[in-house]
């Protein structure tokens, strides 16, 4: 493993407690909602922020160790950090920005290396321009060239695409992946966007409320999320409290007053149940796991129809059950109508807190 991180930091109302690692050529995602502590964790790795305890190791070198009082300053860590807004020096040209991280070379070698990076990132013609004169894509490439010039041992990306229009985003995402592939070292990609992570990263470490889950493969996260946080961030819209019935394979959702059959067994530590909106299907009365609902609201989404349902017998304050229907199978759904729906046992995710 090239980068291993195990750190914690105590804030007044927030505790950061994360553990992850990334190997050579791997892009590890730190996925979490805003405020989950993912950027803070990244800043700790770069040395911009100091954790209270823990250990950070890179290529066998200890960057931080609270017990041994090791805390390398950021400039000695050789950690590349791609800032959300790139943080290009506004007073320097593209060339000067790149050369800024080549301070250790003599003038001739610096010039040669700058030219090399300019060519590698297709920045020819912009060498003498200031960052504000560049397009979003050129700015990102300049920032990447500057990072590569510093010869980092790991590249950290802090929500690299979140500030962009969706049309530009797709293109920059491809460019980013090309650069990371060529870099070949470990990379950590902080994001709150599952799609971005799904396309670019191999493994995912989900953060919720400052705490990290063990990293899992991206497909595994989507198909079998283990925790409520993982389920939510992977797009699962229905997450409710559940408790086991005495009969094995049967669980109850008290808020909805519904009993459901599950495919997997209930285990120690489970306390919630998740169902993806697209796996809630209209059903015949009396079918397996079927129960009657009332339609509270119908919404036209881009490519699907989303409906908020209230199971009959649900508590007043109960969360809605979301159902998503393809446009193709669109049927007459009107607000206030009664409808039977079901969820097949394999589609019920049993979750830990």
């Amino acid at each position, binding site marked *: 493993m090239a980068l291993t991180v195990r750190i914690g930091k105590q804030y007044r109302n927030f505790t950061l407690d994360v553990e992850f690692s990334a190997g050579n050529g791997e892009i590890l995602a730190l996925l979490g909602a805003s405020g989950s502590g993912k950027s803070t964790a990244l800043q700790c790795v770069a040395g911009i922020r100091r954790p209270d305890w823990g250990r950070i190791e890179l290529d066998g070198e200890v960057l931080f160790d609270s017990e041994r009082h090791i805390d390398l300053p950021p*400039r000695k860590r050789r950690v590349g950090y791609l800032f959300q807004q790139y*943080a290009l020096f506004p007073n320097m040209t593209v060339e000067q920005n790149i050369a800024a991280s080549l301070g250790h070379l003599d003038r001739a070698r610096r010039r040669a290396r700058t030219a090399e990076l300019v060519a590698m990132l297709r920045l020819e013609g912009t060498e003498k321009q200031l960052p504000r004169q560049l397009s979003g894509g050129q700015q990102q490439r300049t920032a990447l060239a500057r990072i590569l010039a510093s010869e980092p041992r790991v590249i950290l990306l802090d929500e690299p695409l979140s500030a962009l229009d969706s049309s530009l985003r797709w293109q920059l995402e491809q460019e980013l992946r090309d650069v990371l592939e060529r870099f070949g070292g470990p990379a950590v990609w902080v994001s709150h966007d599952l799609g971005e992570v799904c396309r670019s990263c191999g493994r995912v470490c989900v953060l919720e409320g400052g705490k990290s889950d063990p990293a899992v493969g991206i497909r595994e996260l989507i198909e079998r999320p283990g925790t409520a946080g993982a389920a939510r961030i992977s797009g699962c819209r229905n997450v409710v409290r559940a408790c086991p019935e005495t009969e094995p394979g049967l669980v109850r959702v008290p808020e909805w007053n519904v009993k459901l059959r599950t495919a997997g067994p209930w285990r120690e530590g489970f306390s919630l149940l998740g169902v993806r909106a697209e796996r809630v299907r209209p059903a015949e009365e009396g079918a397996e796991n079927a129960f009657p609902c009332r339609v509270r609201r119908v919404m036209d989404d881009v490519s699907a129809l989303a409906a908020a349902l209230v199971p009959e017998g649900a508590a007043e304050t109960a969360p809605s059950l979301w159902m998503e229907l393809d446009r193709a199978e669109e049927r007459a759904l009107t607000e206030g109508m009664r409808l039977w729906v079901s969820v097949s046992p394999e589609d019920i995710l049993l979750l830990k807190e």
Partner: protein
Amino acid sequence: MDWYPLVNSLRIAAISTGVVFFLGIFAAYYIAKAPRLVKGLLDVVLTLPLVLPPTVVGYLLLLALGPRRPAGAWMLEHFGVRLTMQWWSAVFATVVVTFPLMYRTARGAFESFDETLAQAGRTLGRSNTWIFWRVRMPVCRQGILAGTVLSFARALGEYGATSMIAGYTPGRTAAISTTVYQLWRTGQDALALRWVLVNLGISAAVLLAVNLLERKEAGKWR
């Protein structure tokens, strides 16, 4: 017309601006990063000369630097240097009076500086000194330049504290401000008016220069 007051005023203003430039930036840089309580406290102390009457500043300076006062007596005894009533004594006055101008404008500029730029510099292997001179100062240039020119203009116009600590000796400590007062007091109105016009000219030129510089700077990076 004897041009000594002009030369003297310009050199006093130039020296004090040089001193205040570094002192102000130094104070602004460290105080901008200080904890809130320290910042609030130091801010009050350092800004005080801006609102105090210059005569109060002059009085306090004499209290420290006068020939029979601690610092003044010590200098006189060990180096034979009298700190008051020299042409350069006025520099003490102008430094104290103009310091808040430099400090406050520089601090404002430093506080609006995007700290991720400094963080980026550090992760790219650069020292804080490099970041300060190559990134922080150029990015904050406008505020710092404005503070410098304002300090210079204010130093040129300082009268109260200067007259107390340097006095008015024609050809030795006379500055434009003290000369105007002296000429008016002795009824040489025409000559006084001439110096008034000189002063107006310099001040207007300085302020015009700031405006031109600012217009050139505006939109340069953003």
